[in-house]
């Protein structure tokens, strides 16, 4: 058969086009894979330590500053920081660890530590300590902070920025209703009554200014009693009289404001963290329940704001300065390539060694200190003098009623179920009593299943 020149020419053009497309795809894929690899060390002769953190935006500047300080202090290691978004950071950590290319060190929300540790993916940090460091670690740091990084008695995380909650009070608003911002209410009931006075609604009943609104039963319960975990017996305590009293108080407070109106109000506000649009700053909320990091935000976005920070207000005969401690903790995966270098960095930042040096880093970020040694250092004391409202959180941290989150492998599930009970009873779908009964049943069912599968002791 004779060859068809026209057909051959067309066919040849098609082949060229297809080959060109494949070449472009191959170049793109190669470039993508090359750019996706871990960052390189910049200083010749140094061993690279990859550090994943979850601080974006202006917080990242602080992180980079601390990393630079560490690198300047070193002759052996260079820490290379890499930002990973907070959402799904556990997932990224797990996948990288399972995939064999984990970071050497990562800052992780302490609530995720039990579930990751129970999977055997985290290094016992005490194995990296010298005997002196171990003794210091078990003696000096705040108890709540130390225990927050532990799971089943093993230390998997060391804090570099713990979080506590308190009440931010707009002093001007309080004076408008004849209250003294320097005299916090003595009981939760008084606080609720004050909040009611501070509410402002429009003609349609919509809340224009929220006087006071509170949530987080898990944390609030510590102001009423032992809360949702018994540390001594290592058991979960849900349907207890003090938890019921706490939940009832929260539900009644929400009823007083109007649950639907409150939902509408919050839906219209920007409640995201790390933002100057936090509703307390423009005065949309008079008494806001929030974390210590807001002190730094107020300093940046509204430095002249007249405000106070009160600790959690307990009910009559309740527990003052209560709190449950969360925040960022440094973890080192079991498969990390540079565990020693990673731990050097952890010690440097946390203040496990040279607490007075680390105090400066805590001041840069407006973070709660690891230990009284950091808190009592001249730099940190200076920070407290210039940011007096921050002291409330430090006082809470040093008190007897500040607790770590329950030490269970399925902590996130437990927290979600407690929030679910609070939400259902706040909406009036179930009574507080029934919500706690349901919670007890659901969580114990889960616990039983996990025990059957060998996940829990």
């Amino acid at each position, binding site marked *: 058969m004779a060859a068809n020149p026209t057909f051959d020419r067309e066919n040849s053009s098609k082949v060229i086009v297809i080959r060109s497309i494949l070449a472009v795809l191959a170049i793109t894929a190669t470039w993508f894979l090359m750019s996706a690899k871990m960052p390189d060390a910049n200083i010749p002769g140094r061993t690279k330590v990859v550090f994943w953190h979850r601080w974006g935006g202006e917080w990242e500047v602080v992180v980079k500053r601390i990393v630079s300080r560490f690198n300047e202090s070193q002759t052996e290691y260079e820490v290379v920081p890499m930002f990973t978004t907070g959402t799904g950071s556990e997932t990224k950590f797990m996948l990288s660890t399972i995939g064999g290319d984990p970071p050497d060190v990562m800052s992780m929300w302490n609530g995720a530590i039990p579930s990751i540790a129970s999977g055997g993916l985290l290094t016992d940090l005490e194995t990296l300590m010298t005997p002196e460091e171990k003794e210091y670690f078990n003696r000096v740091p705040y108890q709540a902070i130390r225990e927050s990084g532990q799971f089943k008695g093993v230390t998997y995380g060391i804090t570099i920025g713990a979080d506590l909650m308190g009440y931010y009070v707009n002093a001007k608003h309080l004076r408008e209703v004849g209250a003294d911002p320097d005299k916090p209410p003595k009981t939760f009931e008084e606080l609720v009554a004050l909040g009611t006075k501070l509410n402002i609604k429009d003609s349609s009943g919509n809340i224009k200014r929220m006087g006071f609104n509170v949530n987080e039963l898990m944390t609030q319960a510590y102001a009423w009693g032992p809360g949702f975990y018994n540390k001594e017996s290592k058991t979960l305590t849900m349907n207890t009289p003090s938890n019921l009293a706490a939940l009832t108080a929260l539900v009644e407070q929400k009823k007083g404001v109007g649950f639907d109106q409150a939902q509408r109000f919050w839906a*219209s506000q920007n409640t995201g963290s790390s933002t100057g649009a936090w509703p307390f700053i423009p005065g949309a909320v008079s008494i806001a329940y929030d974390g210590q990091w807001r002190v730094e935000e107020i300093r940046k976005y509204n430095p002249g704001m007249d405000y106070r920070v009160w600790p959690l207000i307990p009910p009559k005969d309740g527990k003052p300065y209560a709190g449950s401690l969360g925040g960022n903790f440094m973890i080192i995966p079991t498969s990390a390539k540079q565990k020693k270098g990673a731990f050097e960095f952890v010690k440097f930042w946390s203040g496990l060694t040279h607490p007075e040096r680390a105090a400066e880093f805590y001041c840069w970020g407006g973070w709660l200190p690891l230990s009284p040694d950091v808190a009592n250092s001249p730099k940190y004391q200076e920070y407290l003098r210039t940011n007096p409202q921050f002291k409330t959180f430090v006082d809470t941290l040093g008190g007897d009623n500040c607790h770590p989150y329950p030490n269970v492998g399925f902590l996130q599930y437990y927290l979600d179920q407690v929030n679910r009970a609070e939400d259902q009873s706040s909406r009036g779908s179930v009574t507080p009593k029934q919500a706690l009964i349901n919670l007890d049943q659901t969580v114990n069912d889960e616990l039983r299943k996990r025990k059957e599968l060998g996940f829990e002791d």
Partner: protein
Amino acid sequence: MMLFQDELFWKSLWVTIRYALVSVPIVLVVGVLLALLLNINVKGIAIFRTIFYLPSIVPMVATTSIFMWILNPQVGLVNRVLALFHIDGPGWLTDPKWTLWSLVFMAIWGAGGSMVIYLAGLKDIPQYLYEAATLDGAGVIKKTRMITLPMLTPVIFFNLVMGVIGTFQYFTQAFMISKGSGGPEDSTLFYALYMFQRSWKYMDMGYGSAMAWALFVIIVILTFLIFQSQKRWVHYGG
């Protein structure tokens, strides 16, 4: 076995089935109606088709973000418009009674995607069938009922199968509006979202895998049933 004893497993399955029962038929009908309208030869029809198709190619995350503001109970566009008529709009995304309908509303917004497929199906219907019907004295409604819809059933069948499978993989919108919790009161706890929570939030990969297998079986059974039903209502004539 543990899966079947889990209250939230059944709840998430019910949320998904309920959404499928409501949204799939509505989106299907809206898609067909839009296609019928946009099949009429009027000036600028290509522009109208583009306008109706555009929402379906907007990334789901962007669409959901916009809807979260449109449906905001206090400052949202929908409730502002309702307020003009002295209607106190509900908490579309904060009241469990209304979340399903809000999500259906969002699904209708994306009906343009299936509309294009219906439109292609309409173009494929032989013209001589309409000419014969016209000679027999059939009107527009009769032609639609006796020719257009029966001839379109293979396309409807395709969209039905894809729609049902899609609802069982429904995730992004539910994740965004509930910030991953499945709230309010589990009303957006779709199957895929609960599977995600179990796998990646609670790090319970075994449980998540079991749920994925159960999802696979459910989708296979439903697809099989829809395929079985096609003998009764899908016409491959023409």
